[in-house]
């Protein structure tokens, strides 16, 4: 290692090495069935996430207009949030199997940035002032439409970036 290596890089290297040595990571690395199952859970997580969020976003953009927005807000939105949580937990376990390799995989890096943007966009949508009138009166303001469009773009991009990780290994 060069003497001029910045402290920040050394810190992350240590963190990744510690994660790599985690007993659960070691077990998943060598498991015949647990690793594929965790993969399935990750996929299930993002199925629920993307399936749910796209329907909410499409409703915001004017699809299914005869179905009250509240239906999407009460069913699809929480399911999407649950899916996101599952995807993150399973994703973390998958990451732990080869942390240093994934950390330097460009597609993985892009995916993480996009997931962060997706979460920020979703949280500001869900907890912003526009949510209640939308739920109560089907009142969709223009800003909601912008965020819904961003949401579709971001989560589909996450899907692509996630798939490409394996193709760049």
């Amino acid at each position, binding site marked *: 290692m060069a003497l001029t290596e910045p402290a920040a890089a050394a810190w992350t290297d240590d963190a990744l090495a510690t994660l790599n040595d985690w007993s659960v990571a070691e077990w998943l690395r*060598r498991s*015949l069935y647990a*690793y594929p199952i965790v993969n399935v859970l990750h996929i299930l997580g993002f199925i629920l996430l993307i399936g749910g969020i796209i329907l909410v976003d499409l409703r915001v953009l004017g699809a299914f207009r005869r179905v009250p927005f509240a239906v999407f807000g009460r069913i699809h939105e929480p399911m999407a949030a649950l899916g996101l949580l599952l995807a993150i937990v399973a994703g973390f376990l998958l990451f732990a199997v080869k942390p240093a390799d994934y950390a330097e995989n460009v597609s993985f890096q892009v995916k993480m940035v996009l997931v962060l943007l997706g979460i920020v966009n979703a949280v500001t949508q869900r907890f912003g002032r526009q949510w209640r009138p939308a739920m109560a009166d089907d009142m969709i303001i223009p800003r909601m*439409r912008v965020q819904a469009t961003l949401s579709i*773009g971001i989560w589909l991009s996450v899907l692509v970036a996630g798939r490409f990780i*394996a*193709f*760049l290994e």
Partner: protein
Amino acid sequence: MPTKPIRATLAAGAILSLTAATALAHHGWAWTSPEPFVLSGTITDVYIGNPHATMEIEVDGEIWHVDLAPLIRTLDAGFDEEAASVGDSVTLYGHQSTIEGENAMKAVRVEVNGMTYDVYPDRTGPFD
């Protein structure tokens, strides 16, 4: 389609999905040449784990990356942590990457420490 924003969004989504960079596909066999390829060298790294086993070997001062099989297949062939260590001499039979200048291959057979491991037994035909 009921509204313009929806059409625009779906179009953008389609375009997004299609802007797939020509991926350096180290996945499956599409990235390798169909020609049989043999490589001998010294092991500098061995990884027996998920998602698939890999090796790094040194050949004439250069490092080559070797993809083996997914874990189940690799272990079925008998190739586990005891089979090879850093520093061992190894001969690999498989297929080379078609990407210019890339030192990489996918191995179907590994010869090391007097043993032969067919990690992809249905693909060892050209070498038998």
